[in-house]
Protein backbone atom coordinates (compact mmCIF):
# COMPACT_ATOMS: atom_id res chain seq x y z
CA UNK A 1 0.00 0.00 0.00
CA UNK A 2 1.40 3.33 -1.03
CA UNK A 3 0.99 6.03 1.62
CA UNK A 4 -0.97 8.99 0.26
CA UNK A 5 0.68 12.37 -0.03
CA UNK A 6 -0.86 14.87 2.34
CA UNK A 7 -1.57 18.29 0.95
CA UNK A 8 -1.20 21.05 3.51
CA UNK A 9 -1.23 24.81 3.68
CA UNK A 10 -4.20 25.25 1.34
CA UNK A 11 -7.18 27.21 2.68
CA UNK A 12 -9.09 27.51 -0.56
CA UNK A 13 -9.84 25.11 -3.37
CA UNK A 14 -7.51 23.44 -5.85
CA UNK A 15 -8.61 24.21 -9.40
CA UNK A 16 -7.74 21.46 -11.88
CA UNK A 17 -7.98 22.38 -15.55
CA UNK A 18 -8.37 19.52 -17.99
CA UNK A 19 -9.77 17.50 -15.11
CA UNK A 20 -11.64 15.09 -17.40
CA UNK A 21 -8.50 13.64 -18.87
CA UNK A 22 -7.41 10.36 -17.39
CA UNK A 23 -4.66 11.95 -15.34
CA UNK A 24 -6.98 14.76 -14.21
CA UNK A 25 -9.61 12.32 -12.95
CA UNK A 26 -6.99 10.42 -11.00
CA UNK A 27 -5.70 13.65 -9.50
CA UNK A 28 -9.24 14.73 -8.51
CA UNK A 29 -9.80 11.36 -6.79
CA UNK A 30 -6.51 11.62 -4.93
CA UNK A 31 -7.12 15.20 -3.81
CA UNK A 32 -10.83 15.52 -3.01
CA UNK A 33 -10.71 14.01 0.50
CA UNK A 34 -8.01 16.44 1.59
CA UNK A 35 -9.16 19.71 0.10
CA UNK A 36 -11.87 21.31 -2.00
CA UNK A 37 -11.41 20.41 -5.67
CA UNK A 38 -12.85 22.39 -8.57
CA UNK A 39 -12.71 20.87 -12.03
CA UNK A 40 -12.59 22.94 -15.17
CA UNK A 41 -12.98 21.24 -18.53
CA UNK A 42 -15.12 21.56 -21.62
CA UNK A 43 -15.92 17.87 -21.34
CA UNK A 44 -18.40 16.51 -18.80
CA UNK A 45 -17.16 14.66 -15.70
CA UNK A 46 -19.93 12.08 -15.16
CA UNK A 47 -18.34 9.77 -12.58
CA UNK A 48 -16.84 12.48 -10.43
CA UNK A 49 -16.72 12.20 -6.66
CA UNK A 50 -19.69 14.05 -5.11
CA UNK A 51 -17.65 16.72 -3.40
CA UNK A 52 -15.79 17.68 -6.58
CA UNK A 53 -17.28 20.80 -8.08
CA UNK A 54 -17.14 20.69 -11.87
CA UNK A 55 -17.59 23.46 -14.42
CA UNK A 56 -18.01 22.61 -18.08
CA UNK A 57 -16.07 25.64 -19.16
CA UNK A 58 -13.01 26.65 -21.05
CA UNK A 59 -10.38 28.71 -19.27
CA UNK A 60 -10.79 31.31 -22.02
CA UNK A 61 -14.47 31.92 -21.36
CA UNK A 62 -15.53 34.90 -19.26
CA UNK A 63 -17.28 32.69 -16.71
CA UNK A 64 -13.96 31.09 -15.77
CA UNK A 65 -13.31 34.34 -13.93
CA UNK A 66 -16.22 33.63 -11.59
CA UNK A 67 -14.75 30.25 -10.79
CA UNK A 68 -11.53 31.90 -9.73
CA UNK A 69 -13.50 34.45 -7.71
CA UNK A 70 -15.03 31.65 -5.61
CA UNK A 71 -11.82 31.21 -3.62
CA UNK A 72 -9.11 29.28 -5.40
CA UNK A 73 -5.78 28.92 -3.66
CA UNK A 74 -3.97 26.67 -6.14
CA UNK A 75 -4.23 25.78 -9.82
CA UNK A 76 -3.08 22.60 -11.49
CA UNK A 77 -2.97 23.16 -15.24
CA UNK A 78 -3.46 19.94 -17.17
CA UNK A 79 -5.63 21.42 -19.90
CA UNK A 80 -3.20 21.37 -22.80
CA UNK A 81 -4.61 20.16 -26.12
CA UNK A 82 -2.38 17.67 -27.90
CA UNK A 83 -4.56 16.73 -30.87
CA UNK A 84 -2.03 16.10 -33.64
CA UNK A 85 -4.67 16.05 -36.36
CA UNK A 86 -6.31 19.33 -35.41
CA UNK A 87 -5.33 22.59 -37.02
CA UNK A 88 -2.02 23.33 -35.37
CA UNK A 89 -2.37 27.12 -35.56
CA UNK A 90 -5.76 26.94 -33.87
CA UNK A 91 -4.46 24.54 -31.25
CA UNK A 92 -1.50 26.75 -30.56
CA UNK A 93 -3.69 29.82 -30.10
CA UNK A 94 -5.99 27.93 -27.71
CA UNK A 95 -3.15 26.61 -25.58
CA UNK A 96 -1.31 29.90 -25.40
CA UNK A 97 -4.41 31.94 -24.61
CA UNK A 98 -5.40 29.54 -21.86
CA UNK A 99 -2.10 29.85 -20.06
CA UNK A 100 -2.11 33.60 -20.49
CA UNK A 101 -5.63 33.79 -18.99
CA UNK A 102 -4.61 31.46 -16.24
CA UNK A 103 -1.78 33.67 -15.05
CA UNK A 104 -3.96 36.76 -15.45
CA UNK A 105 -6.52 35.31 -13.01
CA UNK A 106 -3.76 34.02 -10.75
CA UNK A 107 -2.37 37.52 -10.45
CA UNK A 108 -5.76 39.20 -10.06
CA UNK A 109 -7.17 36.86 -7.43
CA UNK A 110 -3.89 36.37 -5.56
CA UNK A 111 -3.65 32.63 -6.11
CA UNK A 112 -0.53 31.40 -4.32
CA UNK A 113 0.26 28.26 -6.28
CA UNK A 114 0.36 27.16 -9.94
CA UNK A 115 1.46 23.68 -11.05
CA UNK A 116 1.95 23.11 -14.77
CA UNK A 117 2.40 19.70 -16.28
CA UNK A 118 5.01 19.88 -19.01
CA UNK A 119 6.93 16.83 -20.17
CA UNK A 120 10.47 15.53 -20.50
CA UNK A 121 9.72 15.36 -24.21
CA UNK A 122 10.41 19.09 -24.43
CA UNK A 123 14.13 18.26 -24.27
CA UNK A 124 13.73 16.03 -27.31
CA UNK A 125 15.43 12.73 -28.12
CA UNK A 126 18.82 13.46 -29.67
CA UNK A 127 21.98 11.50 -30.43
CA UNK A 128 24.07 14.06 -28.54
CA UNK A 129 21.89 14.16 -25.43
CA UNK A 130 23.65 13.48 -22.17
CA UNK A 131 22.35 10.26 -20.68
CA UNK A 132 20.45 12.24 -18.05
CA UNK A 133 19.21 15.74 -18.77
CA UNK A 134 18.94 18.22 -15.95
CA UNK A 135 16.36 20.99 -15.73
CA UNK A 136 18.90 23.45 -17.17
CA UNK A 137 19.21 21.60 -20.49
CA UNK A 138 17.91 23.48 -23.53
CA UNK A 139 14.41 22.56 -24.75
CA UNK A 140 15.17 21.28 -28.23
CA UNK A 141 12.22 18.95 -28.67
CA UNK A 142 10.35 21.12 -31.13
CA UNK A 143 13.17 21.17 -33.70
CA UNK A 144 12.41 17.92 -35.46
CA UNK A 145 8.93 17.47 -33.96
CA UNK A 146 6.96 20.63 -34.54
CA UNK A 147 3.75 19.36 -32.90
CA UNK A 148 5.42 19.59 -29.53
CA UNK A 149 5.98 23.31 -30.04
CA UNK A 150 2.96 24.24 -27.92
CA UNK A 151 4.30 22.39 -24.94
CA UNK A 152 7.80 23.84 -25.31
CA UNK A 153 6.42 27.34 -25.62
CA UNK A 154 4.06 26.84 -22.72
CA UNK A 155 6.89 25.56 -20.57
CA UNK A 156 9.22 28.41 -21.46
CA UNK A 157 6.48 31.04 -21.33
CA UNK A 158 5.46 29.95 -17.86
CA UNK A 159 9.05 30.22 -16.69
CA UNK A 160 8.73 33.98 -17.18
CA UNK A 161 6.23 34.03 -14.31
CA UNK A 162 8.94 32.98 -11.86
CA UNK A 163 10.04 36.61 -11.90
CA UNK A 164 6.87 38.32 -13.14
CA UNK A 165 4.86 36.93 -10.21
CA UNK A 166 7.53 36.27 -7.58
CA UNK A 167 4.94 35.80 -4.81
CA UNK A 168 3.34 32.84 -6.64
CA UNK A 169 4.85 29.39 -6.11
CA UNK A 170 4.95 28.36 -9.76
CA UNK A 171 6.03 24.78 -10.40
CA UNK A 172 6.68 23.22 -13.80
CA UNK A 173 6.85 19.44 -13.79
CA UNK A 174 8.59 17.59 -16.59
CA UNK A 175 7.78 13.92 -16.13
CA UNK A 176 9.35 11.13 -18.21
CA UNK A 177 7.04 8.96 -20.34
CA UNK A 178 3.86 8.59 -18.27
CA UNK A 179 2.51 5.06 -18.35
CA UNK A 180 -0.89 3.87 -17.28
CA UNK A 181 -4.48 4.06 -18.42
CA UNK A 182 -3.66 7.46 -19.90
CA UNK A 183 -3.93 7.78 -23.66
CA UNK A 184 -0.56 9.27 -24.46
CA UNK A 185 1.93 8.18 -27.10
CA UNK A 186 4.16 5.97 -24.92
CA UNK A 187 1.24 4.12 -23.32
CA UNK A 188 -0.47 3.69 -26.68
CA UNK A 189 2.79 2.46 -28.18
CA UNK A 190 3.14 -0.22 -25.52
CA UNK A 191 -0.50 -1.23 -26.03
CA UNK A 192 0.02 -2.03 -29.73
CA UNK A 193 -0.71 -5.64 -30.70
CA UNK A 194 2.67 -5.91 -32.41
CA UNK A 195 5.16 -3.32 -31.25
CA UNK A 196 7.48 -2.00 -33.96
CA UNK A 197 11.05 -1.17 -33.02
CA UNK A 198 13.87 0.31 -35.06
CA UNK A 199 16.35 -2.26 -36.32
CA UNK A 200 19.66 -1.94 -34.49
CA UNK A 201 18.45 0.70 -32.03
CA UNK A 202 17.71 -0.11 -28.42
CA UNK A 203 17.91 3.08 -26.37
CA UNK A 204 17.63 3.26 -22.62
CA UNK A 205 14.14 4.22 -21.51
CA UNK A 206 12.61 5.91 -18.53
CA UNK A 207 8.96 5.72 -17.61
CA UNK A 208 6.90 6.91 -14.69
CA UNK A 209 3.63 5.49 -13.35
CA UNK A 210 0.63 7.78 -13.70
CA UNK A 211 0.02 7.65 -9.95
CA UNK A 212 3.59 8.71 -9.28
CA UNK A 213 2.91 11.77 -11.43
CA UNK A 214 -0.23 12.44 -9.39
CA UNK A 215 1.88 12.21 -6.23
CA UNK A 216 4.45 14.55 -7.71
CA UNK A 217 1.71 17.08 -8.49
CA UNK A 218 0.46 16.84 -4.90
CA UNK A 219 3.98 17.34 -3.58
CA UNK A 220 4.34 20.36 -5.84
CA UNK A 221 1.32 21.91 -4.10
CA UNK A 222 3.46 22.46 -1.01
CA UNK A 223 3.69 26.22 -0.45
CA UNK A 224 7.48 26.35 -0.53
CA UNK A 225 7.84 24.37 -3.79
CA UNK A 226 8.89 26.54 -6.71
CA UNK A 227 10.78 25.98 -9.95
CA UNK A 228 11.19 23.38 -12.68
CA UNK A 229 11.38 19.73 -11.71
CA UNK A 230 12.08 16.62 -13.73
CA UNK A 231 10.02 13.64 -12.57
CA UNK A 232 11.41 10.20 -13.36
CA UNK A 233 10.25 6.75 -12.37
CA UNK A 234 12.21 3.56 -11.66
CA UNK A 235 15.80 3.20 -12.98
CA UNK A 236 16.09 3.14 -16.78
CA UNK A 237 16.21 -0.06 -18.83
CA UNK A 238 16.69 -0.74 -22.54
CA UNK A 239 13.57 -0.63 -24.70
CA UNK A 240 14.03 -4.32 -25.53
CA UNK A 241 13.81 -5.13 -21.81
CA UNK A 242 10.59 -3.13 -21.51
CA UNK A 243 8.99 -5.12 -24.33
CA UNK A 244 10.34 -8.36 -22.90
CA UNK A 245 8.81 -7.64 -19.48
CA UNK A 246 5.47 -6.84 -21.10
CA UNK A 247 5.76 -10.00 -23.25
CA UNK A 248 5.01 -8.08 -26.43
CA UNK A 249 5.65 -9.44 -29.88
CA UNK A 250 7.85 -7.03 -31.77
CA UNK A 251 8.91 -6.36 -35.31
CA UNK A 252 12.16 -4.54 -36.08
CA UNK A 253 12.01 -2.12 -39.01
CA UNK A 254 15.02 -0.29 -40.54
CA UNK A 255 14.77 3.31 -39.42
CA UNK A 256 14.74 4.85 -42.92
CA UNK A 257 11.85 2.61 -43.98
CA UNK A 258 10.05 3.21 -40.71
CA UNK A 259 10.16 6.97 -41.16
CA UNK A 260 8.76 6.84 -44.70
CA UNK A 261 6.18 4.23 -43.74
CA UNK A 262 4.93 6.03 -40.63
CA UNK A 263 4.73 9.31 -42.55
CA UNK A 264 2.43 7.70 -45.13
CA UNK A 265 0.40 5.81 -42.56
CA UNK A 266 -0.10 8.95 -40.49
CA UNK A 267 -1.39 10.80 -43.55
CA UNK A 268 -3.73 7.91 -44.31
CA UNK A 269 -4.94 8.06 -40.69
CA UNK A 270 -3.92 4.46 -40.12
CA UNK A 271 -1.61 5.29 -37.25
CA UNK A 272 -1.80 8.00 -34.62
CA UNK A 273 1.98 8.24 -34.33
CA UNK A 274 3.63 11.02 -36.30
CA UNK A 275 6.97 10.12 -37.89
CA UNK A 276 9.17 12.42 -35.74
CA UNK A 277 8.06 10.47 -32.67
CA UNK A 278 10.20 7.58 -33.96
CA UNK A 279 13.21 9.40 -32.53
CA UNK A 280 11.92 8.49 -29.07
CA UNK A 281 12.68 4.82 -29.79
CA UNK A 282 15.97 5.69 -31.49
CA UNK A 283 17.79 8.11 -29.20
CA UNK A 284 17.93 8.69 -25.48
CA UNK A 285 15.76 11.31 -23.84
CA UNK A 286 16.18 10.63 -20.15
CA UNK A 287 16.11 12.98 -17.22
CA UNK A 288 17.82 13.45 -13.91
CA UNK A 289 15.22 13.94 -11.18
CA UNK A 290 17.67 14.66 -8.35
CA UNK A 291 16.16 18.14 -7.82
CA UNK A 292 12.64 16.77 -7.32
CA UNK A 293 13.94 14.15 -4.92
CA UNK A 294 15.81 16.76 -2.92
CA UNK A 295 13.40 19.71 -2.95
CA UNK A 296 9.98 18.07 -3.28
CA UNK A 297 10.78 14.87 -1.41
CA UNK A 298 9.61 12.97 -4.44
CA UNK A 299 10.45 9.31 -5.00
CA UNK A 300 8.60 6.94 -7.32
CA UNK A 301 6.45 4.48 -5.37
CA UNK A 302 6.01 2.10 -8.29
CA UNK A 303 8.75 -0.26 -9.41
CA UNK A 304 9.58 -1.08 -12.99
CA UNK A 305 7.18 -3.97 -13.48
CA UNK A 306 4.24 -2.24 -11.88
CA UNK A 307 4.92 0.93 -13.90
CA UNK A 308 5.03 -0.99 -17.16
CA UNK A 309 2.05 -3.20 -16.43
CA UNK A 310 -0.08 -0.12 -15.71
CA UNK A 311 -0.61 0.28 -19.47
CA UNK A 312 -2.67 -2.91 -19.49
CA UNK A 313 -4.99 -1.88 -16.65
CA UNK A 314 -8.60 -1.22 -17.66
CA UNK A 315 -7.50 -1.96 -21.19
CA UNK A 316 -10.82 -3.33 -22.33
CA UNK A 317 -12.94 -0.73 -20.58
CA UNK A 318 -12.16 1.76 -23.33
Amino acid at each position, binding site marked *: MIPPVSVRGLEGAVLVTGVCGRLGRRLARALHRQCRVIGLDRRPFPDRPRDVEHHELDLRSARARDVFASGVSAVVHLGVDHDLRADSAENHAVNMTRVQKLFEYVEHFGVKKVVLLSSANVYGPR*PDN*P*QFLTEDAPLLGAGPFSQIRDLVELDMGSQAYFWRLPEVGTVILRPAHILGTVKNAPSNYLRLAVVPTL*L*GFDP*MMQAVHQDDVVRAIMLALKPEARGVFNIAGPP*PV*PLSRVLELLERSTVAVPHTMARLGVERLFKLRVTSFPAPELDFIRYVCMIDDARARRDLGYAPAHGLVSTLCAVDEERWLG
Partner: protein
Amino acid sequence: MSEKTALARFTEAAYGRGLPFLRRVLDGAARAADEVSLRLLGPDFEQRFRVLADRYERLGGDPFGFDPEAVRRAALASAFFHRAYFRTDVYDVDRVPEGRVMLVANHSGQIPIDAAIIGCSLFFDANPPRITRAMVDKWTATLPFVSTFFSRMGQVVGLPENARRLLDMEELLLVFPEGMRGVSKPFEERYQLQEFGRGFMRLALETKTPIVPVGVIGAEEQYLSLGRVSWAARAFGLPVVPFIPQMFLPGGQMPLPTKYRLFFGEPLYFEGDPDDAAAVADKVYLVREAVAHILRRGLAQRRSIFL
Protein backbone atom coordinates in the same frame (compact mmCIF):
# COMPACT_ATOMS: atom_id res chain seq x y z
CA MET B 1 14.81 -56.20 -54.70
CA SER B 2 18.52 -55.77 -54.95
CA GLU B 3 18.04 -52.03 -54.85
CA LYS B 4 16.16 -52.40 -51.61
CA THR B 5 18.88 -54.47 -49.97
CA ALA B 6 21.47 -52.00 -51.16
CA LEU B 7 19.55 -49.18 -49.57
CA ALA B 8 19.08 -51.20 -46.37
CA ARG B 9 22.78 -52.00 -46.26
CA PHE B 10 23.64 -48.41 -46.81
CA THR B 11 21.31 -47.31 -44.03
CA GLU B 12 22.76 -49.92 -41.73
CA ALA B 13 26.28 -48.84 -42.56
CA ALA B 14 25.37 -45.22 -42.07
CA TYR B 15 23.83 -45.83 -38.67
CA GLY B 16 26.32 -48.47 -37.56
CA ARG B 17 29.59 -46.92 -38.58
CA GLY B 18 28.95 -43.54 -40.19
CA LEU B 19 27.08 -41.92 -37.36
CA PRO B 20 29.41 -42.89 -34.52
CA PHE B 21 32.28 -41.67 -36.66
CA LEU B 22 30.52 -38.37 -37.30
CA ARG B 23 29.72 -38.11 -33.62
CA ARG B 24 33.36 -38.68 -32.71
CA VAL B 25 34.37 -35.95 -35.14
CA LEU B 26 31.81 -33.55 -33.72
CA ASP B 27 32.75 -34.42 -30.13
CA GLY B 28 36.38 -33.91 -30.99
CA ALA B 29 35.62 -30.56 -32.56
CA ALA B 30 33.57 -29.51 -29.52
CA ARG B 31 36.40 -30.56 -27.19
CA ALA B 32 38.91 -28.68 -29.30
CA ALA B 33 36.66 -25.61 -29.31
CA ASP B 34 36.32 -25.85 -25.53
CA GLU B 35 40.05 -26.11 -25.18
CA VAL B 36 40.66 -23.16 -27.47
CA SER B 37 38.09 -21.03 -25.68
CA LEU B 38 39.52 -22.05 -22.31
CA ARG B 39 42.98 -21.11 -23.48
CA LEU B 40 41.78 -17.80 -24.92
CA LEU B 41 39.53 -16.77 -22.05
CA GLY B 42 41.81 -18.12 -19.35
CA PRO B 43 40.81 -20.44 -16.51
CA ASP B 44 39.55 -17.59 -14.32
CA PHE B 45 37.11 -16.10 -16.83
CA GLU B 46 34.01 -17.07 -14.82
CA GLN B 47 35.39 -15.47 -11.65
CA ARG B 48 36.30 -12.30 -13.53
CA PHE B 49 32.87 -12.18 -15.08
CA ARG B 50 31.21 -12.64 -11.65
CA VAL B 51 33.17 -9.75 -10.16
CA LEU B 52 31.75 -7.43 -12.81
CA ALA B 53 28.23 -8.82 -12.83
CA ASP B 54 28.07 -8.51 -9.01
CA ARG B 55 29.22 -4.92 -9.10
CA TYR B 56 26.46 -3.84 -11.46
CA GLU B 57 23.90 -5.95 -9.65
CA ARG B 58 24.74 -4.07 -6.46
CA LEU B 59 24.37 -0.78 -8.32
CA GLY B 60 20.92 -1.87 -9.50
CA GLY B 61 21.86 -1.95 -13.17
CA ASP B 62 23.95 0.45 -15.19
CA PRO B 63 22.12 3.64 -16.20
CA PHE B 64 24.12 3.85 -19.44
CA GLY B 65 22.97 0.44 -20.65
CA PHE B 66 26.04 -1.65 -19.92
CA ASP B 67 25.08 -5.32 -19.83
CA PRO B 68 27.52 -7.87 -18.30
CA GLU B 69 25.88 -10.61 -20.38
CA ALA B 70 26.94 -8.77 -23.54
CA VAL B 71 30.53 -8.93 -22.26
CA ARG B 72 30.18 -12.69 -21.93
CA ARG B 73 28.94 -12.95 -25.52
CA ALA B 74 31.71 -10.77 -26.90
CA ALA B 75 34.42 -12.26 -24.67
CA LEU B 76 35.61 -15.01 -26.99
CA ALA B 77 36.06 -12.78 -30.04
CA SER B 78 37.76 -10.09 -27.93
CA ALA B 79 40.05 -12.63 -26.30
CA PHE B 80 40.97 -14.01 -29.72
CA PHE B 81 42.14 -10.58 -30.89
CA HIS B 82 43.73 -9.72 -27.55
CA ARG B 83 45.63 -12.96 -26.94
CA ALA B 84 46.05 -14.64 -30.34
CA TYR B 85 45.81 -12.07 -33.11
CA PHE B 86 47.57 -9.06 -31.61
CA ARG B 87 49.34 -11.07 -28.84
CA THR B 88 49.13 -8.04 -26.55
CA ASP B 89 51.88 -7.52 -24.01
CA VAL B 90 50.49 -5.59 -21.06
CA TYR B 91 52.95 -3.77 -18.80
CA ASP B 92 52.14 -2.44 -15.32
CA VAL B 93 48.36 -2.65 -15.51
CA ASP B 94 48.43 -2.96 -11.70
CA ARG B 95 49.35 0.73 -11.56
CA VAL B 96 45.71 1.59 -12.27
CA PRO B 97 44.31 2.65 -8.88
CA GLU B 98 40.96 1.48 -7.55
CA GLY B 99 37.90 3.68 -7.70
CA ARG B 100 37.42 6.53 -10.11
CA VAL B 101 40.25 6.86 -12.58
CA MET B 102 40.85 8.26 -16.04
CA LEU B 103 43.09 6.49 -18.54
CA VAL B 104 44.56 8.89 -21.08
CA ALA B 105 45.99 7.13 -24.12
CA ASN B 106 47.30 7.86 -27.57
CA HIS B 107 44.74 7.12 -30.27
CA SER B 108 45.68 5.41 -33.52
CA GLY B 109 44.85 2.72 -36.02
CA GLN B 110 42.04 4.17 -38.20
CA ILE B 111 39.38 2.18 -36.34
CA PRO B 112 39.36 2.22 -32.54
CA ILE B 113 40.71 -1.27 -31.95
CA ASP B 114 43.11 0.29 -29.44
CA ALA B 115 40.16 1.09 -27.18
CA ALA B 116 38.94 -2.50 -27.38
CA ILE B 117 42.40 -3.88 -26.56
CA ILE B 118 42.77 -1.54 -23.58
CA GLY B 119 39.35 -2.75 -22.45
CA CYS B 120 40.50 -6.35 -22.86
CA SER B 121 43.65 -5.80 -20.83
CA LEU B 122 41.62 -4.33 -17.96
CA PHE B 123 39.19 -7.21 -18.07
CA PHE B 124 41.55 -10.14 -18.71
CA ASP B 125 44.80 -8.97 -17.12
CA ALA B 126 43.93 -6.53 -14.33
CA ASN B 127 43.18 -7.62 -10.75
CA PRO B 128 40.37 -7.08 -9.97
CA PRO B 129 38.94 -6.93 -13.51
CA ARG B 130 37.34 -3.66 -14.54
CA ILE B 131 35.09 -2.42 -17.26
CA THR B 132 36.53 0.34 -19.39
CA ARG B 133 34.08 3.12 -20.19
CA ALA B 134 35.40 4.78 -23.31
CA MET B 135 33.98 8.05 -24.52
CA VAL B 136 32.69 7.51 -28.06
CA ASP B 137 31.85 10.11 -30.69
CA LYS B 138 28.23 11.24 -30.64
CA TRP B 139 28.01 10.49 -34.33
CA THR B 140 28.06 6.76 -33.46
CA ALA B 141 24.75 7.19 -31.61
CA THR B 142 23.01 7.66 -34.96
CA LEU B 143 24.22 4.31 -36.31
CA PRO B 144 22.02 1.25 -35.98
CA PHE B 145 23.62 -1.77 -34.23
CA VAL B 146 26.80 0.19 -33.50
CA SER B 147 25.01 2.44 -31.02
CA THR B 148 23.38 -0.52 -29.29
CA PHE B 149 26.60 -2.55 -29.28
CA PHE B 150 28.61 0.30 -27.78
CA SER B 151 26.01 0.96 -25.14
CA ARG B 152 25.79 -2.70 -24.07
CA MET B 153 29.58 -2.93 -23.93
CA GLY B 154 29.73 0.00 -21.54
CA GLN B 155 30.77 2.73 -24.00
CA VAL B 156 29.27 6.14 -23.47
CA VAL B 157 28.67 9.15 -25.71
CA GLY B 158 31.51 11.55 -24.97
CA LEU B 159 29.89 14.43 -23.14
CA PRO B 160 31.19 16.06 -19.96
CA GLU B 161 27.88 15.36 -18.17
CA ASN B 162 28.19 11.65 -18.92
CA ALA B 163 31.84 11.53 -17.88
CA ARG B 164 31.08 13.28 -14.60
CA ARG B 165 28.29 10.85 -13.82
CA LEU B 166 30.53 7.86 -14.53
CA LEU B 167 33.28 9.23 -12.30
CA ASP B 168 30.73 9.76 -9.56
CA MET B 169 29.90 6.08 -9.96
CA GLU B 170 33.64 5.36 -9.38
CA GLU B 171 34.05 3.97 -12.88
CA LEU B 172 37.15 3.70 -15.04
CA LEU B 173 37.12 6.15 -17.93
CA LEU B 174 39.17 5.81 -21.09
CA VAL B 175 39.85 9.12 -22.82
CA PHE B 176 41.61 9.80 -26.10
CA PRO B 177 42.24 13.54 -25.94
CA GLU B 178 43.49 13.50 -29.54
CA GLY B 179 40.06 12.32 -30.66
CA MET B 180 39.46 11.91 -34.37
CA ARG B 181 42.75 13.72 -35.15
CA GLY B 182 44.69 10.87 -33.60
CA VAL B 183 42.86 7.83 -34.85
CA SER B 184 42.91 8.84 -38.52
CA LYS B 185 46.57 9.89 -38.75
CA PRO B 186 48.32 8.87 -41.98
CA PHE B 187 51.18 6.41 -41.70
CA GLU B 188 53.92 9.03 -41.95
CA GLU B 189 52.70 10.64 -38.73
CA ARG B 190 52.73 7.45 -36.70
CA TYR B 191 53.42 7.82 -32.97
CA GLN B 192 53.35 11.60 -33.22
CA LEU B 193 50.90 12.82 -30.65
CA GLN B 194 48.38 15.29 -32.01
CA GLU B 195 47.02 18.22 -30.06
CA PHE B 196 45.26 17.19 -26.84
CA GLY B 197 41.76 18.38 -26.01
CA ARG B 198 41.50 19.95 -22.57
CA GLY B 199 38.09 18.84 -21.38
CA PHE B 200 39.46 15.76 -19.65
CA MET B 201 41.73 17.83 -17.41
CA ARG B 202 38.95 20.19 -16.32
CA LEU B 203 36.90 17.14 -15.44
CA ALA B 204 39.77 15.48 -13.57
CA LEU B 205 40.30 18.63 -11.51
CA GLU B 206 36.60 19.03 -10.76
CA THR B 207 36.13 15.43 -9.70
CA LYS B 208 39.63 14.89 -8.19
CA THR B 209 40.26 11.93 -10.46
CA PRO B 210 43.73 10.41 -10.87
CA ILE B 211 45.00 10.17 -14.45
CA VAL B 212 46.91 7.15 -15.71
CA PRO B 213 48.83 7.83 -18.94
CA VAL B 214 48.74 4.87 -21.32
CA GLY B 215 50.91 4.22 -24.35
CA VAL B 216 49.61 1.93 -27.08
CA ILE B 217 52.23 0.58 -29.47
CA GLY B 218 51.33 -1.56 -32.46
CA ALA B 219 48.02 -0.01 -33.47
CA GLU B 220 49.62 2.51 -35.82
CA GLU B 221 50.80 -0.23 -38.16
CA GLN B 222 47.56 -2.27 -38.30
CA TYR B 223 46.21 -0.22 -41.21
CA LEU B 224 48.65 1.75 -43.33
CA SER B 225 46.79 4.92 -44.26
CA LEU B 226 48.34 7.08 -46.95
CA GLY B 227 46.07 10.05 -46.31
CA ARG B 228 42.52 11.24 -45.92
CA VAL B 229 40.00 11.31 -48.75
CA SER B 230 37.98 14.38 -47.97
CA TRP B 231 35.53 14.09 -50.89
CA ALA B 232 34.58 10.54 -49.86
CA ALA B 233 34.03 11.71 -46.29
CA ARG B 234 31.73 14.45 -47.54
CA ALA B 235 29.93 12.12 -49.94
CA PHE B 236 29.16 9.49 -47.30
CA GLY B 237 28.65 11.91 -44.44
CA LEU B 238 31.45 10.33 -42.43
CA PRO B 239 33.77 12.26 -40.13
CA VAL B 240 36.83 10.98 -42.02
CA VAL B 241 37.69 8.40 -44.70
CA PRO B 242 41.32 7.19 -44.76
CA PHE B 243 42.96 5.85 -47.92
CA ILE B 244 44.20 2.35 -47.00
CA PRO B 245 45.64 0.44 -49.98
CA GLN B 246 45.52 -2.95 -48.22
CA MET B 247 41.72 -2.70 -48.17
CA PHE B 248 41.72 -3.50 -51.88
CA LEU B 249 43.55 -6.81 -51.39
CA PRO B 250 41.62 -9.95 -50.50
CA GLY B 251 41.63 -10.28 -46.73
CA GLY B 252 43.21 -6.85 -46.39
CA GLN B 253 40.12 -5.58 -44.62
CA MET B 254 41.39 -7.27 -41.49
CA PRO B 255 43.99 -5.26 -39.58
CA LEU B 256 47.56 -6.47 -39.97
CA PRO B 257 48.52 -8.80 -37.09
CA THR B 258 50.95 -6.41 -35.47
CA LYS B 259 52.05 -7.00 -31.90
CA TYR B 260 50.30 -4.72 -29.44
CA ARG B 261 52.14 -3.41 -26.43
CA LEU B 262 50.30 -1.52 -23.71
CA PHE B 263 52.28 0.48 -21.18
CA PHE B 264 50.51 1.89 -18.14
CA GLY B 265 52.27 4.82 -16.49
CA GLU B 266 52.29 5.93 -12.87
CA PRO B 267 49.01 7.61 -11.88
CA LEU B 268 49.18 11.40 -11.90
CA TYR B 269 47.28 13.44 -9.32
CA PHE B 270 46.39 17.01 -10.15
CA GLU B 271 44.93 19.81 -8.09
CA GLY B 272 43.89 23.27 -9.07
CA ASP B 273 41.23 25.51 -10.50
CA PRO B 274 39.40 23.83 -13.40
CA ASP B 275 38.45 27.24 -14.83
CA ASP B 276 42.00 28.59 -15.02
CA ALA B 277 42.61 27.95 -18.73
CA ALA B 278 46.36 28.54 -18.64
CA ALA B 279 46.89 26.24 -15.64
CA VAL B 280 44.72 23.57 -17.25
CA ALA B 281 46.75 23.83 -20.47
CA ASP B 282 49.97 23.37 -18.50
CA LYS B 283 48.62 20.27 -16.81
CA VAL B 284 47.39 18.86 -20.13
CA TYR B 285 50.93 19.39 -21.42
CA LEU B 286 52.30 17.32 -18.53
CA VAL B 287 49.95 14.44 -19.34
CA ARG B 288 50.79 14.66 -23.03
CA GLU B 289 54.49 14.55 -22.18
CA ALA B 290 53.91 11.52 -19.95
CA VAL B 291 52.20 9.66 -22.81
CA ALA B 292 54.89 10.78 -25.28
CA HIS B 293 57.60 9.56 -22.91
CA ILE B 294 55.98 6.15 -22.61
CA LEU B 295 55.73 5.94 -26.40
CA ARG B 296 59.36 6.93 -26.92
CA ARG B 297 60.56 4.32 -24.45
CA GLY B 298 58.27 1.62 -25.84
CA LEU B 299 59.36 2.29 -29.41
CA ALA B 300 63.03 2.21 -28.45
CA GLN B 301 62.55 -1.20 -26.83
CA ARG B 302 60.64 -2.62 -29.77
CA ARG B 303 62.65 -4.93 -32.03
CA SER B 304 59.91 -5.93 -34.49
CA ILE B 305 56.49 -4.65 -35.48
CA PHE B 306 55.04 -8.14 -35.75
CA LEU B 307 56.94 -10.08 -33.08
